[in-house]
């Protein structure tokens, strides 16, 4: 090959590379633009709610537009601190969601380890029954559940809000699969290291399942925090409302009560704990979502 033809070939190659680079960069920019657009679309309602929460109620009675123009007020937030039940509802939600998360992790981990590593009669059948729970819609069991808790006089208690949600077939399945993936040799090494079965579970296997625990914990907490149907049915006293039920109750009374600005301030206030939780556990939440959707 002559020098000139070599140069020409090398020029062609670099043009092809540049062309590829350009189309690659264009794709990236298009994707970035789309993501920004979607983020804006998703953020607009939140910004709207935030803006409305700083507007006086009497102004909002006339129009809910113009959130960026004066007048602004902090009265809606001051009213929350002074009069609203929202603190009680947030506390209830924290107790219920926190309790549910901790207990779900305990139950699902133990059940998962049992299914993954121990042998007992009818294990396959019992595991299939647990998984069958995935196919039963929540609405189908509401009435028997309501009657059961009514019979034992537990409605309007934390126990009634937490206990029915501890049966999490997905959680058992997730933990079972995770424990199955832990190399058996690690547990055998622990057996040779004189560890009891309980110690192996607590000290060797459980710490290895932290990623799965984080996934399950985050999902459970978020699902519990946003749960509406069962708390609406079980908690009839306002002091036992969770945040979702409490906020819904104020929206229903909107016409004769606090006004839209106050309502928006309540929504912002209610969203703060979950926002803080997200900021702290952002990495785990992203991993959890990615881990369960992209296999």
């Amino acid at each position, binding site marked *: 090959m002559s020098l000139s033809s070599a140069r020409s070939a090398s020029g062609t190659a670099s043009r092809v590379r540049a062309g590829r680079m350009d189309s690659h960069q264009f794709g990236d920019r298009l994707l970035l633009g789309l993501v920004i657009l979607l983020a804006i679309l998703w953020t607009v309602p939140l910004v709207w709610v935030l803006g409305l929460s700083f507007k006086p109620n009497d102004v909002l009675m006339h129009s809910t537009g113009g959130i960026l123009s004066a007048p602004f007020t902090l009265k809606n937030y001051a009213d929350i601190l002074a009069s609203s039940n929202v603190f009680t509802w947030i506390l209830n939600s924290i107790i219920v969601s926190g309790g549910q998360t901790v207990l779900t992790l305990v139950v699902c981990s133990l059940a998962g380890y049992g299914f993954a590593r121990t042998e007992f009669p009818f294990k396959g059948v019992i595991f299939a029954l647990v998984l069958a729970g995935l196919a039963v819609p929540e609405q189908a069991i509401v009435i028997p559940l309501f009657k059961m808790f009514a019979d034992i006089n537990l409605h309007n208690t934390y126990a009634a809000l937490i206990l029915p949600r501890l049966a999490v077939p997905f959680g058992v399945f997730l933990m079972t699969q995770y424990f199955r993936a832990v*190399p058996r*040799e*690690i547990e*055998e*090494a*622990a*057996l*040779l*290291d*004189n*560890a009891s079965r309980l*110690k192996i579970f607590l000290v*060797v296997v459980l*710490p*290895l399942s932290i990623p799965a625990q984080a996934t399950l914990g985050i999902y459970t907490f978020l699902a519990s925090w946003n749960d509406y149907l069962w708390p609406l049915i079980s908690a009839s006293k306002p002091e036992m409302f969770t945040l979702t039920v409490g906020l819904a109750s104020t929206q229903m009374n909107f016409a004769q009560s606090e006004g839209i600005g106050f309502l928006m301030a309540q929504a912002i206030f209610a969203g703060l704990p979950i926002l803080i939780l997200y900021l702290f556990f952002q990495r785990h939440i992203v991993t959890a979502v990615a881990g369960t959707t992209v296999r």
Partner: protein
Amino acid sequence: MGRIELVGVTKRFGTAEVIPELSLEIEPGEFAVLLGPSGCGKSTLLRMMAGLEALTAGEIHIGGRRVDGLPPGQRGVAMVFQSYALYPHMSVADNLAFGLRNIGMAKEEIATRTREAARILEIEHLLERKPMQLSGGQRQRVAIGRAIVKEPQAFLFDEPLSNLDAALRARTRVEIARLHQRMGSTMIFVTHDQVEAMTMATRIVVLNKGRIEQIGSPLEIYRRPATRFVAGFIGTPGMNFLPVDMAEGAGGHAEVVLPGGTRLATGIPSRNLPSNAGSLTLGVRPEAVRVNPDGPVKAEVEFVEHLGDRTHLHVALPGGAQLVVEDAGESVVRAGEHIALTADGARLHLFDAADRAYSAA
């Protein structure tokens, strides 16, 4: 340092018998290698000694104590797994100390033993690291260290070199052998790799289908295989097998007729062979045959493998039988050439129909 005794050990998985009644004695301080192909039951046997697999029948004694009813942690053995099986969330120091803490050993004693094991294995600088931060070879050392700190009656190694690359495997092999020399402990090493077995063992136990084919020193196993299976399993390239007929030999030694009609004298005493031997198989290792222009066996070279220090010639005998022959590293023999071969009669083996071996005295 304990003696290990297996008496009538049997293992069945459902109806499948993996180990039919097997008895074996391993002396204190011995480096015994359980060698065999995949699925021969060698790992199962080791796991039964460790207590990780229940016996269907039989007894296991370690250090004079019957242990087959005891849980793994109380048998006085330590095991090094193929995958290392380190606790990923614990530091190297914690990995070493975990077993000692579980038996309630004093902190000072744990620290002393951990330091000493780390010193022997040259992993003192790694004690605070997690297994994820270690290379394969370092992980292997930690796994061995975890066994050393326990000062067990016996070390059990379950193919611990399989996950290492060739160079590291060779180095670790020497280190384990050196460790055995230094500690003088009883070690049982499971492998399917004959090189590992030959280089490390004081005694090799060759297993096939759950049965012991032969027990002996590495050279004994190599030079005087008890069965055709052992003869074929040991040695790379493997022993050549040729169907032969018996002929009247001189001086009380057997003579055989090769497929092409060539007679070959062996060093095997005729009286050792069964009178109704019938069809026999000749076993000859590649290095027992040499290229010799005056040799009695004529062959055609089909393929030549130059390995540097030696050359392997793949040849065809007049009857069509194939043979691998070892030649010098600088061999000039080329494919397609017709050559003559000679065999060292003292290094020939005969196998009867039941695959029993007959070797020169």
